[in-house]
């Protein structure tokens, strides 16, 4: 066989290669751009105000790091709670549980601030070599709502290049790519990289809204030991222990993990050290982000049912019980919901003056039984977007169509 040597490297092959490259570019560009537009959020009618992170840290204005901040205030004075989802955009239950709060919450006492897409940039791309689906669908009353599955890190199109080594704002040296990991960038830098500015913005929310308790919603892969867990800053140790016992009583097993003092830049460490608040981080198990997963389909995001994780469970390699039922998204969201409520209950026990009380949310068992979609607004058919600040009350559930917000990815 002669091989291809005879047609290597002439003008024709060069032109053909360029043409092929351009074609591939054209073919794929719409797929990548399809993740730039944020999925609509339909806040509950009891939303007090919708702000943007740039309202707390103006440098974020018109950047891909800017993101919605939903504030719910109750009639009675009380404490104030911050809930973040989407610090890691590939951890669907974190975002979805925060969304469930935004679309249902009615705060009776105190204040609740929810940031469902804490790292908005991370929602605009997928991690190379993970083969992740770009979207997954959730059945809601009257249709299916589609959501982006993002990546763990900030989009390199928005923050590039990575340094060789990254010194976190908290002073630890880690691998360079972690410069785009929001959960290594706390407490942030006001004039730092995009990710550090987002982290700074969240610390500004904590300071300006007078937050006393912060809960960061995550997921981890089933082969990872910190899972089904409540990770707590030492200021929240007592609360975490009380909450864990209550959850046990409900039939939900959670591990308690103290936030390691030498692991810097994480929300549960720096919100506590720099924000001065009680900080906790919750983990649920998510097969689609793990290294043992089979085909990473949109269904796997929702059902959490994977043949290789089943096999690994049989081999005793997982840190959670895992069977043919899988780890459905609704069950994972329900765990987050139950844990947040248990933490609020324990706050009331420990510090009654700082208590937060709410209604409007489904019971966690109902989320497991009916699916999380049953408690989301039917958003199909182009409902209202949550752009424009100010009062949004009454906007939920179908209203006037608004133009997409300019300047956002």
């Amino acid at each position, binding site marked *: *066989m002669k*091989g*291809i*040597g005879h047609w290597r490297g002439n003008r024709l092959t060069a032109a053909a290669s360029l043409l092929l490259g351009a074609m*591939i*570019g054209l*073919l*794929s560009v719409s*797929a*990548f751009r399809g993740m730039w537009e944020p999925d609509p959020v339909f806040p509950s009618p009891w939303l007090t105000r919708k702000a943007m992170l740039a309202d707390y840290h103006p440098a974020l204005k018109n950047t891909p790091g800017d993101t919605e901040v939903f504030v719910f205030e109750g009639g009675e004075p009380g404490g104030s709670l911050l809930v973040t989802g989407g610090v890691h955009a590939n951890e669907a239950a974190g975002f979805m549980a925060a969304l469930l709060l935004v679309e249902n919450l009615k705060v009776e006492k105190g204040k609740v601030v929810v940031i469902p897409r804490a790292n908005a940039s991370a929602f605009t791309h*997928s991690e*190379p*070599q*993970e*083969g992740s689906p*770009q979207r997954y669908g959730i059945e809601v009353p009257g249709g299916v709502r589609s959501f982006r599955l993002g990546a763990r890190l900030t989009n*390199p199109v928005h923050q590039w*290049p*990575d*340094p*060789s*080594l990254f*010194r976190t704002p908290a002073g*630890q*040296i*880690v*691998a360079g790519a*972690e410069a785009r990991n929001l959960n290594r960038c706390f407490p942030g830098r006001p004039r730092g990289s995009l990710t550090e500015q987002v982290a700074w913005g969240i610390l500004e929310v904590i300071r300006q809204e007078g937050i006393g308790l912060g809960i960061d919603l995550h997921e981890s892969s089933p*082969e*990872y*030991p*910190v899972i089904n867990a409540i990770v707590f800053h030492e200021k929240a140790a007592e609360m975490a222990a009380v909450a864990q016992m209550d959850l046990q009583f409900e039939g939900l097993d959670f591990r308690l993990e103290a936030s*390691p003092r*030498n*692991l*810097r830049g994480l929300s549960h460490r720096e919100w506590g050290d720099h924000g001065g608040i009680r900080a906790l981080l919750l983990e649920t198990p998510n097969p689609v982000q793990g*290294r*043992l*997963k*089979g*085909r*990473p389909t949109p269904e796997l995001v929702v059902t959490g049912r*994977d043949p*290789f994780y089943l*096999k*690994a469970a049989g*081999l005793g*390699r997982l840190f959670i019980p895992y069977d043919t039922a899988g780890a459905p998204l609704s069950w994972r969201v329900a765990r987050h919901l139950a844990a947040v409520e248990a933490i609020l209950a324990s706050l009331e026990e420990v510090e009654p003056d700082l208590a937060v009380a709410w209604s409007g949310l489904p019971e966690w068992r109902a989320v497991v039984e009916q699916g999380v979609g049953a408690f989301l607004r039917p958003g199909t058919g182009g409902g209202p977007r949550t752009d424009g600040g100010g009062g949004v009350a009454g906007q939920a559930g179908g209203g006037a169509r608004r133009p997409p917000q300019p300047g956002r990815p």
Partner: protein
Amino acid sequence: MSEPLVFFTMALAFVGAAAVGRLPIGISLMAAAVVGGLAGGEGVPVRHLVEGGFGYFDLLLIILSAILFMKVLQAAGVLDSLAAGILRAFHRRKTLLLLASMALVMFPGAITGSSTVAVLTAGPLVAPVLMRLGLGTLKTGALVAMAAVLGMAAPPINILVMIMGGGVDMPYVGVTVPLLLLVVPPALAIPLWLGHRELGAVDSEHLDDILPKSWFGEYGWRLFLPLLLVLGLMASQRFLVRFMPDPGLPVIFLLGSLLGWRSGRSFDFLEVTRQAVKDAMPILAILVGVGMFIQILTLTGGRGWIVVSLLGMPKALLYFAMALGLVAFGGVSSFGSASILGVPFVLALMEKNAILTSTALSLVASLGDLMPPTALAGIFAAQVVGEPSYLKVLRYCLVPAGMVLVWGLVVLLSAETLERILL
């Protein structure tokens, strides 16, 4: 098709394209990725191919700029002058010369965590010296490749440990002593094993016959400025990370290249750049192909199948599976191997100290840079010594690599004892 079947189809397509069709390795990997998409029922998943292909984008820029830098150093006469200087200093003490060569190649690897950078920056300085003193081309290539691999594993920067640590939330702290324990013994043994017999000592009379032309007389210390600039900036990335912004390796190499243009013999910069791009292209294509290959392997479930199959080995075989899997997967990418296999392995050995297991596994995984088809350390070492077939160089790496592998496993197996002594 089932996951293993898709994987074997992809492997077959790669071998078919590379061995039978004589397509370049990079193109063969891309073709195998396309075949995998079709076999896995995904059609031609253009988005996944592009996404995967960009997986090593930053590394591509580093390699391209590093090759340019190497070409500039050659063209400016820096390499010849430096080789002459080293020869003059060390020609009577071959043990010292061998160990110094080893350390010289390891150094850039140790501070960047990349075997590629080690081979490309220090390889061209050391290789001509060794070859002039009688060490065969292939053995010289093997020595450079092994030094690069050990440099990659050596402290202060071991990216493989960082990747594994990142996957298990282990901070990159306290790794220096275990890494030294892992790296130093093979770094002493390998150069002596490879070179002690062949390397000849030369007396001063014959020295001038084998010395390359030194341009030191014409240009003086100016010659070494580009090298000092690059090494200085590379060290500052590590040691001044607190105080100065990181210019990034591509910029560092480009600055070094521009300085090299004006610090020695004059040459046509554009022509050298053209040569560098030409030399780099096959390697860049391999990395793009590897990215596509892994993405499709993951997309079709083949990656999960491989990881779970390795984890499913009986306990006695687990260490064997680790050694085999980490090195074999390194043939695709050693960083990928550390992330995809290394992290589950550290987790599987959770009862042991994570610092010791991850550092020992990193030594094993670093050997992946000698594993075809990518074999980055082997390919570049062959290029540095001017050997067209990198497989011939790799043959001489077999025994040294075996030493490294065994040493890594010994440390891994005795982790409990070591933990009591070291940590």
